[in-house]
């Protein structure tokens, strides 16, 4: 059980702390998964509307989500807010390159449009009873495995 306790938390290794640690992330996931269903952003049809520019819905969802993220991250930086465990929240700049982002991003975009799903929505769709998406998940794990095998030969 102690393995679930991240080294970054100041919590002890008592059973309740581990349970609290686990419950926190499961609850955040449930919250997110519930909203994904209610916004229908995990719908293959909504993704089709988006890439055909036939509906504003997806752009509204993504745009307002990013806006809330931008403002809250700015507030955390501006007031140097700390995490509940007392640790400082810091942001690390990503590597400044272009190949991996444009090429890898395009490949993901192809998969996103074909399946109408990204990793989060895949989990929510399986939970929502569309169990065929287990195949999509397994194929995605295989894709990540394949990337890990050839990554030394790819531009980054």
């Amino acid at each position, binding site marked *: 059980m102690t393995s679930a306790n*991240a080294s970054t938390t100041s919590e002890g290794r008592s059973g309740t702390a581990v349970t609290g640690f686990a419950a926190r992330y499961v609850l*955040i996931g449930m919250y997110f998964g519930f909203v994904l269903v*209610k916004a229908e952003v995990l719908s293959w049809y909504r993704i089709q509307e988006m890439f055909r520019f036939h509906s504003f819905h997806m752009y509204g969802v993504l745009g307002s989500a990013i806006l809330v993220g931008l403002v809250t991250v700015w507030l955390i930086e501006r007031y140097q807010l700390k995490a509940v465990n007392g640790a400082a929240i810091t942001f690390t700049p990503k590597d400044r390159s272009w190949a991996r982002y444009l090429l890898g991003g395009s490949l993901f975009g192809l998969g996103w449009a074909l399946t109408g799903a990204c990793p989060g929505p895949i989990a929510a769709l399986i939970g929502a009873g569309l169990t065929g998406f287990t195949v999509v998940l397994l194929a995605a794990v295989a894709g990540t495995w394949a990337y890990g095998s050839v990554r030394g030969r790819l531009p980054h």
Partner: protein
Amino acid sequence: MLGYNISHMDILLDALRGPWPWYVAGPLIGLTVPLLLILGNKRFGLSSNLRHMCAIAPSKNPFFRYDWRREGGWNLLVFAGIAAGGFLGGVLLADPAPVQVAEPTTAALARAGLDVDGRLAPAELFSWSSLFTLRGFVVMVLGGFLIGFGTRWAGGCTSGHAIMGLSERQWPSLLAVVGFFGGGLLATHLLLPLVLAL
């Protein structure tokens, strides 16, 4: 106008069933970013879970040899929670009305040979039996493979780059999002019509 016989509980349940407009759902999705930062000092990003799942299996590849419980245990819990949230929202509190699709999209899909069926994703492509059709197999297996390969190469997906990365004002994430949309447009307008014709 609401009748007097409608109880508050009915109104609440009706609202919970959805669908929710973008201006409700979008900000709620955005709140996942500060929730994870404040409650766990963690960065929102779900595609890493695909790597953690690889790391669970024994491998000689150093890319998959790390302590997945310590690095990714929290994220796998989020992932499992999302499935539970999907069950809550998509089964227990499912919206009884069929999914509405914009008229021009319905028409374009019909021309490509796919009928809108009111589900979250067309059963014709994503049911277990469709796995044994050529187009179902290509959409599920090739599509899934590209998600896994592309997200790890790009270092993130819609959550990690489009939402978290852009919220942090990371320029590489903007590049990634440009890639996401470029690939998505290509797949929707060139690849999908070919696949649906299979």
